[in-house]
């Protein structure tokens, strides 16, 4: 086991659940020497498993349970407590069983507590010559096409814009989350395709869809007007750059080692988890090389858009486990 990573702070609901579990143990078993055995059959990582184990141990100590040293005589007679970290389709379920082998504990039923998975957001470390880091921004059940983080030009307030096929929703920062400020309908200019695509640019006050574009004022926070627009990039012959995958990608603002940055997804389809890989594109001759570690995401990347003026991309994925759509900002950092 590695202890290189710091023990994470558990969300309050998790600590509350562990306290409840310890209360139930104390109600069922008199304080004694115990041995906690933890089995993880959920998607929690080892760091969090360790933190949960430590937190439960601490809670049991408060109820006067003791934890004899492993090789001590007392350890041999310690009451085994089996903690199984499991998960259902909707939440984490933590089950504590008093060992059936122990005398006078056969009638102790399994004790179960549950906590929401939404209180838990994984951190993604990244370190390489070109390293990518992702930051979670937003999730919702309904599909959306793009999003943007912006600032209200008059109030200076942080805004989150979320674009779907029918509306642009604007949220303002509220505590650690976002609160809906306004929902602006998007006039429908054409029959809706099933693979709709759309992009937001608050700085240009524009939204682009396939076949039409919309302008809003100010900062897209008011009503929008839309008009049919001709397809873009239709006059340029596409060429294949050696080294780049045949997948979703975009150029990224900035350079690394004097070469142009780009980010590409994996080549799977929309039923598979995905990854985002950084590439350096050189122009003489034109070629691309993958650099640094790819970052993994929990579902297919639906949209990948470059940010303006910063080395980052906006990513929308569909989380295959939850079915929800999630927004991330993936930042590229060159550390050469």
């Amino acid at each position, binding site marked *: 086991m590695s202890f290189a990573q710091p023990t994470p702070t558990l969300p309050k609901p998790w600590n509350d659940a562990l306290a409840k579990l310890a209360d139930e143990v104390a109600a069922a078993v008199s304080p004694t020497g115990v041995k906690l055995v933890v089995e993880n*059959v*959920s998607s929690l990582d080892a760091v969090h498993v360790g933190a949960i184990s430590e937190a439960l141990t601490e809670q049991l100590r408060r109820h006067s349970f003791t934890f004899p040293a492993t090789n001590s005589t007392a350890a041999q007679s310690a009451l085994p407590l089996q903690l*199984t970290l*499991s*998960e*259902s*389709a*909707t*939440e*984490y*379920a933590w*089950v504590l*069983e008093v060992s059936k082998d122990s005398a006078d504990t056969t009638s102790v039923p*399994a004790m*179960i*507590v*549950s906590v929401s998975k939404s209180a838990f957001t994984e951190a993604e470390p990244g370190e390489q010559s070109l390293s990518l880091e992702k930051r979670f921004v937003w999730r919702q059940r309904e599909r959306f096409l793009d999003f943007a983080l912006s600032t209200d030009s008059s109030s200076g307030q942080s805004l989150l814009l979320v674009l779907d*096929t029918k509306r642009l929703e604007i949220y303002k920062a509220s505590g650690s989350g976002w609160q809906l400020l306004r929902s602006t309908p998007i006039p429908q200019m054409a*029959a*809706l*395709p*099933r*693979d*709709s695509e759309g992009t937001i640019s608050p700085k240009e006050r524009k939204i682009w869809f396939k076949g039409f574009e919309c302008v809003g004022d100010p900062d897209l926070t008011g009503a929008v007007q839309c008009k049919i627009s001709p397809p873009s*990039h239709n006059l*340029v*012959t*596409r*060429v*294949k*750059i050696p080294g*780049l995958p*045949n*997948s*979703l*990608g*975009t*150029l990224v603002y900035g350079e690394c080692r004097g070469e*142009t940055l*780009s980010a590409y*997804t994996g*080549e*799977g*389809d*929309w*039923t598979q988890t995905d990854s985002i890989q950084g590439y350096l*594109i050189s*122009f*003489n001759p*034109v070629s691309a090389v993958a650099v640094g570690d790819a970052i993994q995401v929990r579902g*297919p990347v639906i949209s990948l858009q470059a940010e303006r003026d910063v080395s980052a991309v906006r990513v929308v994925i569909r989380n295959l486990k939850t079915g929800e759509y999630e927004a991330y900002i993936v930042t590229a950092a060159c550390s050469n």
Partner: protein
Amino acid sequence: MLRRLAVISALAGVVFAALPARSARRPRYGGTLRVEIAASIASLDPDVAAATAEDAAAKWQIDSLIFDHRDADGRFAGAAGSGAFRVTAFEAGKRAVLAANEEFREGRPFVDSIEISMGRAAHERLVDLELNKTDIVEIPPQDARRAAEQGVRVSVSQPDELLALVFVEHDAPRASGGGASGSAAGAAGGRPIALTDGEVMGQALSLAIDRVAIVNFILQKTGEPAGGLLPQWSSGTAFLFPEVAPTQADLEHAKELSKEIAAAGPLVLGYDSADPLEQSVAERIVVNAKEAGMAVRAQALAGSSAEKSRGGTLQAGHVDVELVRWRMSSPLPGDALRDFLSRIYAGPLAGVEPGAFPEAPSPEDIYKQQRAVLNAYRVVPLVWLPQVYGLSARVRDWKAPRPGENWPLADVWLDTDAATGVQ
């Protein structure tokens, strides 16, 4: 420096153009998706009842493609063709052709049309898939491994269909003597239930049946042994109902239990005569029961009724216990269990007062409800089965539907560049 910038600028234009706005992984429109199913649907009208459970399930899937709305009872309603597809041809029991609805509110489907061939036997479906005559077929779970070994592209869902033994009559022991042999075996909501002779027989059978062998040999490892009423991926607590191969001690215990009942004759185990899997499992149970000193006779029942699949009261007077296949109605453990409980308390536990089950049950509530049912031994879970589909090489973005979901045929697209035939 200026020259380099100019070169980069010019090349950047090419690069921007080279970055695929629509990559190979993005869907393409067009083509006809060919689907073969076992069911023979007489009518797509939601008000017309299907003849069998299999027909009803397939009809539900097709109706979900052509209707956009359901009424308050969950039945498809509104205009046919308001969904992702509209029917352009229909031959009762044989064939249906659906065309994409250009105006569908969720966007036009990717394929232009779907051709559904009905009444196709399992081996016919597989052969047609191998000969590239079809794109999507249902595969019985027991055939999944062999199909995959033959190179068929197989899609397997999470296990979501429970194969279980259900005792037909409650508190009407078919054997005499012995009397109640247990007490406080468990309760729904705390009401103790004393074990009747039938329940003792249920416990003995549960101990004797080798679920691991059923999964390994009959299902060729496509499935999981079932100890509870929900699978682990849904409930998170299925490991509290462990299922391993019966030990010698289990068999001895089963023998002791069966001796407590003076049997008047063999226990009659009913199974659907049209279901080869049920037949194989029933025959295996007969063997397992014999090893534990119990006499069980497998009895084929003609025609599996839709009522049986829906889990209504099993009306089969000449059988004591019956094999049932119950598909989860939702991936959410509370919803799925609520559906199962409604079947159980209308059938094998009719007359038993169910314990309170909260609207938003916790994993602990779900565990306790299952424990109450299982301790009565009127329902004996055997195995969890997945839904298995065979796909042609050109099918893209197919995702095996989860419980309560429909075939995602509006999202499927056809890759015309893909190799054809068996992969």
